[in-house]
Structures are given as structure tokens and as C-alpha cells.
């Protein structure tokens, strides 16, 4: 009988998934030098995003865009242009970016956090998150911003750079670091984070370890990063203190919680 129920579950999986169709996109930039930007190139970003999508496909998420290289635009991450239907980061519930960022050595409270792409379109290629990114406002719908670059979430400047971006956004993840203690190019980090957060359906859910967004990033965000101060960082906004902390600790991508009013922020980090 148990087998029969399992088989039924396998066959009916797509129907259950219809109820939880969150939309997501990936943006992966490998080629910087061939496209006229300062390098080096990052050959592992595209396979990282490929694996991310495979896990999220298993999780039943709906893929919206999967741009790479020059098809990822700086404008995708800036308010006012981030709802471009051809690939803006604010047209989906979840966006996974993998590519370069910019580090300081060391960062200060007034330092910026950056996403750096390489494209002739949607310029400038570098976006200062704190001053230009606003997620979840207007027609935007981004709930989870997963930024696998280097130093896009420096702890010392987190209030300046990340508090303002929450306009409906639930959580963001990234790294804090310096030029000498940085993230390495990695297939594993983002894809295992996807495996932990995809919320795989029954019967995988029996056995596969699923984690909250914050816990998953503490575990997977510390993969392939250098010692000496590089940290995995996760931040959540909340209606009040308890809500922010609850989201930081317990919100899963599939929790289905409403958008927070960003009155409070709760963040956590783990350094190597």
C-alpha cells in the first residue's frame, strides 16, 4: 500500500506544484575580459547557475529568465529598470546572481556594496546596491535576493547598504570580506544553497535536508571562501523585531509569508 501511495505522489507531483509556483531567475557572468571589462573571468559561475536551476526545477519553481554574460545587465539590479520584463531582477520572487562584485581593503561604514556585470547594454555595469537597488517596490515582486559575488554585503556598512533596499524584499544573502579574504569562484556554493532551499517535494522531502534561507547560507555560504575574515551574511526585514528575527531564522523560500514592512532588520553572519 505504501508503494502505491508513493507512486500516486510521483504521478501527481506536478498538480501539487501548481499551488506553489514561485518565479525565479538566474544571472551568471563568466566572461569579463572577452567583453572588454576588467577581469579575471569566472568560469564556474555558469555551471553554478545551471545547477541552481536544476535544483529549483526539482523544487517546482517557475523559471523566468536565465541570462548569462552580456545578457545580464547592470540595469537589471537598479530601481526604475529592474522591472524590465526581459530580465530585471524585480520581476521574479527569487533572483540568483553569480559574478563579480567589488571589495575594499578594508571596507568602512560608508563603503558601497556592488554587483559588477559586463555588458554593452544596461550600463553602467557596476551597481551600488545601497543607493541604486530597491526591491519589491511598485510593480516589483522580489522576495529573495541571492547575491553570490564577493563583498556585496559588508557587515560594517550593512545598515547603509542594505536597510534601504527592502521595499517588500524578505531576505538577502551575500558575503562580507576584503580583497585578501574573499570568495572563490565556485560551482558548489550556490548550487548546494539551492539544494537546501528548494523545498523538494514528497518523497524527496522525507530524506533531503531542507533548511531555512538563513541557515542554508550559513552552511553553504561558507564553502569556498578564504579564511581571515570572509563571512557568509544573511539579512531579513520584519514588521517588528520579532518578525525580522523569525524571518532570519525560520523563513523558507516556500514559507509563503507576506511581504514585511521594513521597520526592523535582523541579520546573521558566519566567518571563516
Amino acid at each position: 500500500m505504501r508503494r502505491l501511495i508513493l507512486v500516486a505522489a510521483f504521478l501527481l507531483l506536478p498538480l501539487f506544484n501548481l499551488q506553489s509556483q514561485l518565479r525565479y531567475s538566474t544571472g551568471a557572468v563568466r566572461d569579463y575580459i572577452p567583453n572588454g571589462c576588467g577581469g579575471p573571468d569566472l568560469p564556474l559561475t555558469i555551471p553554478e547557475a545551471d545547477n541552481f536551476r536544476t535544483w529549483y526545477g526539482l523544487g517546482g519553481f517557475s523559471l523566468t529568465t536565465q541570462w548569462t554574460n552580456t545578457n545580464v545587465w547592470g540595469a537589471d539590479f537598479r530601481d526604475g529598470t529592474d522591472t524590465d520584463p526581459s530580465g530585471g531582477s524585480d520581476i521574479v520572487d527569487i533572483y540568483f546572481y553569480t559574478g563579480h562584485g567589488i571589495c575594499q581593503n578594508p571596507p568602512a561604514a560608508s563603503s558601497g556594496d556592488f554587483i559588477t556585470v559586463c555588458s554593452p547594454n544596461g550600463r553602467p555595469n557596476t551597481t551600488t546596491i545601497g543607493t541604486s537597488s530597491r526591491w519589491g517596490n511598485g510593480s516589483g515582486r522580489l522576495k529573495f535576493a541571492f547575491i553570490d559575488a564577493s563583498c556585496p554585503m559588508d557587515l560594517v556598512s550593512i545598515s547603509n547598504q542594505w536597510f534601504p533596499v527592502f521595499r517588500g524584499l524578505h531576505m538577502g544573502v551575500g558575503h562580507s570580506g576584503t580583497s585578501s579574504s574573499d570568495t572563490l569562484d565556485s560551482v558548489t556554493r550556490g548550487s548546494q544553497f539551492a539544494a537546501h532551499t528548494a523545498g523538494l517535494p514528497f518523497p524527496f522531502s522525507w530524506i533531503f535536508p531542507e533548511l531555512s534561507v538563513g541557515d542554508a547560507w550559513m552552511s553553504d555560504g561558507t564553502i569556498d571562501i578564504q579564511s581571515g575574515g570572509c563571512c557568509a551574511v544573511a539579512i531579513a526585514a520584519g514588521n517588528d523585531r520579532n518578525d525580522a528575527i523569525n524571518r532570519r531564522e525560520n523563513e523558507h523560500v516556500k514559507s509563503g509569508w507576506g511581504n514585511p514592512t521594513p521597520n526592523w532588520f535582523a541579520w546573521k553572519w558566519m566567518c571563516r
Partner: protein
Amino acid sequence: MKIKIAVLLGIALVLALGLKLSPTNGVSSSQGDEGQRRLESLAKDLKLDVGKITNSGTVQNMVGIRSENVLFSQRRDSRTYFIQDARYGPDKNAGVFQGSDEMLVERSRSVLKVLDIPSDEISKANILREKTQAGYIDRRTRKVVPEAPRDGKVYAEFWRQVSGVPVFSSRALVGLTKEGTVGFMELHWPVIPKATVEEGRRLQALVRGRWQPPSQKDAVVESVEAGIIHSPALGFVMDIYPAIRVIYRAADYKVGRKMTLYLDGNGRPVPVPRQFEKVETTPAKTRPRK
């Protein structure tokens, strides 16, 4: 309503057909049962407070047992274990281990021993400390009002070598409860074939000799080290390769995320260890300009 009807019809259809497909995906029921019994036995050895098991089974390459609070699962094609206790955490019932770092490492080592991890393969133990903080912006002064940082979870992390060859992709991450039992663990420590270790040693000799990493535009070589890479913990296949890892830093010191290449002795890239039999890659097309 339509979905509910479809679900009921589907279940009725399956029951009516009496299909005999195995949910174990090629693994016989007896093998699956054996795996579950082994996990139950290991749970006792590890003194896990599993309670009443509510689910157990084999799916693809995984076998596991689950209760209201605890998941304990294992890959069947790799020495890879996962433990999650929902009660683990600083503000939860099981709490977080409060002993010294040395005690945390020692107790975590004993966990690895129960799971047959050779102690001579542990090359390094780190302590990873989670820190938490909260704050808000005072609407009147427009200034940030942060609370003091607090301690979160604490993990012992173990790195690996086999016969002096580092295994870059293996890792054990262990978090203990205040009682010293496992609250969280991801142990990924696949058996490495002897030939791979030998090739790793040959690559080490090359690196010690005249082997030169390929130069890269806008980048400076930061480190070169021979070792072994393999597929990550969560996945459906296990690839293992010897490789020379070359880490480059950007010539422009500000550009972050360091280029990292995994190369063979001839300086060619080794394949990326897979997580799936097949991954759909990004279709090559150009995004329309506005």
C-alpha cells in the same frame, strides 16, 4: 476544487491500475530496509533523541529516517550523512553547546568516529561561530539603532586529506546541542579510490617541481595546490578527480570573487564534478535590447 478532484482521480487511477513501480529507484526493498536499520542503529550509537520514527525510506541514492524533530539520512553512493534536529539553536529547546572549543572539536571527532571516518584523514579542525544582530532606523533621528551582536550556533568544521593529498570538496560541519548531542551535521567524506590519491600525489610532485599555472589576463596567481575534488554532498552522482587548484586574485585589487581553476598536469581544466546525470545548460541566445 479542480485540483482536488484531479488528485482524487489520480489516486483512484493508480490504485485501480495497481502499479508496482518501486519508489526506491532500483534499490531493492531489502537493501532499503537494511539501510534504515543501520541508520536506526547509528542513531542509538550517536545518542540522537529521535523519538518515534514517522517516515523512513529510500529515494534515489538516499536513505533516511525522520521523526517529528529529527532527520537522519545518508547517501548510498557516498560516505555522506545529514542530521537535523529542529530543536537545535540558541533560542530552542535543545540549545547550543556551551563547552570549550576543544570540547566541541573532541566530541565532534567522536561523532565522526562512529560514522567510520578515519581519524588520520582529518587534516584540520576549525570553529565557525554564527553571530546575530538586529536593529532599526529611528524615524525621528534617522539614525540606525543597532542591538549588540549575540552568539548564534557554533560549528566544528573538519577538512580532509588522504595520504597527504588534500581533498578540497570534503567537509564535515557539526553543531552540538547543549547536551552535547548532534543538532546539525553535514558530513561529506566519500571514499577516494587509491588510483586517484596516487594521481593526486603525482600532481603534488609536479607542483613542487617546474609546473607553472597558466597566466591569466588581469589576474595574478595567488596560490597553487594539488589535491582532489569531487561532487558535493547533495546530488545524485559522484565524480572524483585529482586536480591542481590555482587561485588567482585580480590585478585590480578591488575586483572580487577570485578566479579558481582546477587543472590536470597538462594545465587543462578537469571536468566540473556533477550533481546530476544531466544538467540543462543555458540556451545560447541574445537578449533583445530595449
